[in-house]
């Protein structure tokens, strides 16, 4: 199943797009200081952060409070990061997580 990282219209929006820039799958995304990664992605109209290890299905932020583990992504090379609990930083590299977390050496 293909992932849509280009929104067909922002569903949760705000007038002030923010002063920070980070990247999602290589594309620049703007954020406000204090945003969580999940919030900044949703503000940019991105609703999918990963595919499931079981059925390879797309998932994204659901509970926004660290309970559901659906908003996982690869953040600065580390997989399985709960983006709803992670504050966004300038230059952060966020990638879609495909399936289970990959172990690095």
């Amino acid at each position: 199943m293909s992932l849509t990282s280009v929104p067909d219209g922002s569903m949760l929006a705000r007038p002030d797009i923010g002063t920070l820039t980070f990247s999602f799958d290589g594309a620049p995304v703007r954020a406000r200081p204090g945003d969580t990664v999940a919030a900044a992605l949703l503000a940019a109209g991105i609703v999918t952060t990963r595919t499931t290890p079981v059925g390879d299905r797309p998932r994204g932020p659901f509970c926004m409070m660290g309970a559901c583990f659906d908003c996982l992504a690869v953040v600065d090379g580390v997989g399985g990061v709960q983006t709803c609990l992670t504050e966004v930083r300038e230059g952060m590299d966020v990638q879609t997580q495909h399936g289970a977390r990959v172990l690095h050496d």
Partner: protein
Amino acid sequence: MTDLAIIGAGPAGLSAAIEARRHGLDVLLLDENAAPGGRIWQAIERRTAKDKDDTAAQATVAEFRACGARATFGATVWCIEPDGSVFWSAGGKAEVARAKQVLVATGATERPLPVPGWTLPGVMTAGAAQILLKTSGLVPQGRVWLAGQGPLLLLYAVQALAAGGRLAGVIDLGAAGAQRRALSHLGGALRAPDYLRRGLMWRRKVAKGGVPWIRGRDLRAEGDGRLARIRFTDVHGERTEAADMLLLHDGVMPSVQITRALGCAHRWNTAQRSWAPQTDAWGRTSVANVVVAGDGGGIGGAQAAAISGRIAALGIAATLGRIDDAARDAAASGLWREQAKHLAVRPFLDALFAPLVPAPADDAIVCRCEEITAGRVREAVSLGCLGANQLKAFTRAGMGPCQGRMCSATVCEVIADARGVAVETVEPYRLRFPTKPLTLGELASLHDG
């Protein structure tokens, strides 16, 4: 050794810290979020106060900041040991502190509302949308639907409209007859008329905002790779509506992950259809030196939670010999009276928003992590599966990273229904530490000091 470790910086945890510091206790507070406030007061320090509740919340947070409690934010507690050792991870490093007393103030989580398609990106909870509004100023635009029931659903609609948001509609999935049943508890509710007044005002605001209020059932979310439309049945029959976002809500229930892992005795609350740790008047659980305050001990709302935090701290101060029992009782008597007033509205609210007994369609996923449908659970029961813990062996339901947070309640309901037994006779998933996943690197970092 620390006198008191508090898990959770919501109204209960903050109020407990303030009260404990008044009696000279050394306090360590741990919270997963970046700042104090919990869910209800999230990001309150960064927001402009909109009403007297916000002002009071800001005052409590400011008092906490000045009270001398040590606080670590961004800290995920993953284990508490019987000797009072509390383990947490923050910034990829694990740490441990020992405390004489542990106060669990972990609040509530939203009850799952497992409609078919609820795993699609674009479907979230109403609580999640409220967090996004509070912390990042995100306002719903486009075709955003609310569905379910409960005070938070209504409150979010009001807050979203006030922030200039647009909502496509509210699909009220509440049971017919709930309003009539709630009326028999109106007497109690009138002891704290503020709650009723506010509820009615919220309904009026949503109606005035031109948001359609539709009584519906059999809701489904559909789309290829992300939410595109919703289907439901209303008085006129089946309806399909385009949807960019769907926000689900069916009330909240105590977050019992830590108290269950600690082995605290829990009791079933029939009206709130959920488990909560059994406590005495001071919030003390069946496990020595473990105390509970706030919604984690039963849903009572923010005001009651703050008061219960103070009561718990008084009890702890007496246990540690910082005040005598007479001083404790004198300080608590006024708090109990005030708390009783806030709790008087609960039977009314519990009846009005009686949890929807989930009877998910066979194709609805109940365990989001392992992608187990309600149909698979029913099939397991037909093969002889009797309970939630056995179901793990049949299906792996409840064995993913969320550790059953999203499916325990539903799985027990589906098993109970399929077996024709009362849901409280189906034992929920047994929980063990670590209650949150951690990496071996984090674990190893404990020894680096």
